[in-house]
């Protein structure tokens, strides 16, 4: 369970932005890849805890889940993955290990009030 330390990093990062912009943050938008190794529900509840007694208290964490996309050598194109337990192209079934997308753990936007 490392979601709390990740939530604390998110809060820290957002607080820095709040100070820099002299703004109040209502929401943090996060991209979360399916291979990031972070559980969304655990992160959501950790986020609330991490926000307590900070400038982010009462703010929302809006998580956009990012599916895994792999490069398929068969199709010679970026394709969705069959499943996280089966690294093969969802279109043609060829084994595919080159990850194009799905490891994201990134704050992408902030909803601010100046």
């Amino acid at each position: 369970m490392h979601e709390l330390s990740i939530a604390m990093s998110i809060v820290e990062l957002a607080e820095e932005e709040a100070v820099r912009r002299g703004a109040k943050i209502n929401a943090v938008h996060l991209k979360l890849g399916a291979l990031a190794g972070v559980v969304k529900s655990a992160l959501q509840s950790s986020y609330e805890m991490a926000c307590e007694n900070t400038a982010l208290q009462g703010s929302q964490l809006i998580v956009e889940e990012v599916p895994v996309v792999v490069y398929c050598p068969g199709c010679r194109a970026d394709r969705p993955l069959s499943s996280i337990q089966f690294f093969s192209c969802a279109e043609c079934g060829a084994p595919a290990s080159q990850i194009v997308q799905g490891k994201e753990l990134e704050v992408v936007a902030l909803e601010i009030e100046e």
Partner: protein
Amino acid sequence: MNSEPRLVEVRKNVLKQNDVVARALRERFREAGVFVASLVSSPGSGKTAFLEKVLTELRKEFRVAALVGDLATDNDAARLARSQAPVKQITTGTLCHLEATMVQSALEGWNLAELDFLFIENVGNLVCPSSYDLGEAMRVVLLSVTEGEDKPLKYPTIFNSADVAIVTKTDLAHAVEFDWAAASANIQAVRPGMEVFRLSTKSGEGIDDFLKHLATRLAEARSISVA
């Protein structure tokens, strides 16, 4: 003031701090010519026994050292010290994984140029360590035959993040009716093309193959580094 709420774009990697330190470590390891392998697995898969064996054998030919992470106790460091290699325990307290800064502080005062191999044994955990780069050149995931063939499917993220898989305790495979075909298929499903070693620390089976692999990887890394 008091304008409507608005959305501003930022792009900030949440684990940037760890990644920055990990990149610096990787560069330091490369410059020093030391090959760094990290070990991840569930608790009880045989990481420490395996590492003790590997350190003992490698020491005959190479300069080796290890860092070992646990929540508490320095039992593992004491066990590994029997190999006569320099070993340092990292106790994480309540943290379920190692982070790059812990590796960085543990290495303070070490002259990396005096090493050929450095092993980093992560905390026994198949979940959290997958997100943290430690600057290693190779991540090894261990799976013991007693854990069952479907571990890779249950923890695909960490298996996918590894470079090499090792199936340990093969001396018990028969007793637990370990299904090799299913295990291989599951590993290849979550990480197509991953090299898999089978070994037993107890009987010694398969150890040589892995030691050869390490020597090859070290030679490759150094030739790339020179070129």
